[in-house]
């Protein structure tokens, strides 16, 4: 019961403090730009000499760039909105009035996690639908495996959210933000190294990429999402720098889910045992 009260108040906080609305406004600005770009690409490009199949794949690749952008926005929104929720409330003593109520600390943390998870679900659903709609209605391109892709992007956000919660129980807000974004940056670079390694057939680069995914599996989830949303033709054509040449396997998805659970358990453990 208390868990749901905290989840509800956390979600309400996001709405009331305009965090969610500001993030959605930023996403809407991006979608407007993306839709305009897609519109002119469709209208102005000299496609007359381009075969229909290639034209479709080019637009599909642009759509992929859109998904990449909202993935980045979703991860940033996840970190920026949740980075302060544990460490900030401890530092400001706001947590004292709540934690002294008849509520288990685990329920307090899980309630907050669920509140943010719900808010991020709304955000990802809206912005993903926005990009999907731009592709479908303006360019006539339908993304393959959209639902699976959206689910993977959401899982990526949950992994980042859980890491933010874990480090929020250990560090100050600023340190937490630096650590989580730093880890995501590491995963991002590692993902590129792995892709370059695949093209240049460098085992060392691929190993570095896999290692970075083990440290932080967020980027590998995006690459899997990108992979499942591309058609086979688009993958083989490599039209976009954001096309995925080396897709993480199902084992990596399983690893990310386990990573999330372990990080959540560690966050609960630290939060239960620390002074507030």
């Amino acid at each position: 019961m208390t868990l749901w009260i905290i989840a509800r108040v956390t979600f309400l906080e996001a709405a009331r403090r305009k965090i969610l609305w500001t993030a959605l406004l930023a996403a809407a600005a991006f979608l407007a730009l993306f839709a305009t770009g897609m519109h002119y690409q469709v209208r102005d490009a000299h496609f007359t000499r381009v075969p229909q199949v290639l034209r479709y794949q080019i637009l599909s690749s642009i759509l992929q760039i859109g998904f990449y952008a909202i993935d980045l926005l979703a991860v940033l929104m996840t970190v920026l909105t949740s980075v302060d929720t544990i460490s900030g409330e401890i530092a400001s003593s706001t947590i004292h009035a709540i934690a002294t109520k008849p509520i288990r600390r685990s329920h307090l943390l899980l309630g907050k996690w669920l509140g943010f998870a719900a808010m991020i679900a709304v955000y990802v659903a809206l912005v993903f639908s926005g990009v999907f709609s731009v592709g479908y209605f303006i360019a006539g391109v339908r993304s393959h495996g959209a639902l699976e892709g959206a689910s993977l992007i959401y899982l990526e956000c949950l992994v980042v959210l859980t890491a933010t919660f874990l480090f929020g129980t250990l560090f100050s807000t600023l340190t937490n933000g630096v650590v989580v974004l730093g880890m995501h940056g590491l995963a991002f670079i590692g993902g590129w190294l792995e892709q370059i390694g695949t093209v240049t057939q460098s085992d060392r680069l691929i190993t570095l990429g896999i290692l970075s995914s083990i440290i932080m599996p967020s980027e590998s989830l995006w690459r899997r999402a990108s992979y499942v949303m591309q058609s086979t033709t688009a993958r083989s054509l490599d039209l976009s720098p954001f096309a995925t040449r080396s897709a993480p396997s199902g084992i990596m998805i399983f690893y990310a889910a386990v990573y999330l659970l372990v990080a959540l358990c560690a966050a609960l453990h630290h939060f239960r045992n620390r002074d507030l």
Partner: protein
Amino acid sequence: MLLGLVKPSSGHAKILDQPFSSVAVRRKIGFLPEDFRFYDWLTASELLTLHGRLSGLTPAQLRDRVPAFLDLVGLMAHRERRLRGFSKGMMQRIGLAQALIHEPELVFLDEPTSGLDPMGRRLVRDIIRDQRKRGATVFLNSHLLSEVEITCDSVVFIKQGEVIGSRDLHGAPDGEIHVHIRAQNLRQEILSGLAQWTTSAQLTGEILILSTSSMDTLPEILRFLVSSGADVFEFTPRRLSLEESFLKIMGEDQGL
């Protein structure tokens, strides 16, 4: 630590006959922290509803108690206003309401009158008295000793985490008593004779200030002075104020 905010390094404790780590026991406890912050995006009414729900009140109870407690702390007119716009005094009032809304058996109030104007301080005193009448025990933690003296039944002095003294403020008189005496012919042998009842004696001109541990000794001291030939013009016993007790027990200010 009793409220579960700080983990003990060792040992155990009970509160209301239950282990202090018990979550259930906190239904019977109210707490107003000193460094008092709340979700400032909530309205006063929403805040009380949230804290009431967390404390286990039913929706029906909340419907009655939220307006009643807003009224109690004088914030009824501001019930739909967000806390972001509240002054320090208003925050103290809403904080007091959230600590009491579930009618706890035990209430911890940490500096509840800091930031309040005289009217607000009086309101807090009245509320604490009402809690006492209701049968609740109120722990008032304060450095405003005049407030403590007016409000509390007993006081405990704590220094560096250890109880170093206590005093009953409304029970039978005890503790050190100062006696202010104006007299003439106070010879040295008289002063020496007083030592059997007093812990200290300081003579300045005609003014003698004695310290004694019990009111029972006062008639004997007065009889001794008169029978020894001293001319007594004034004999006024005075108990130590709480502030004097505090300074005496705590000793020198060590900048702590």
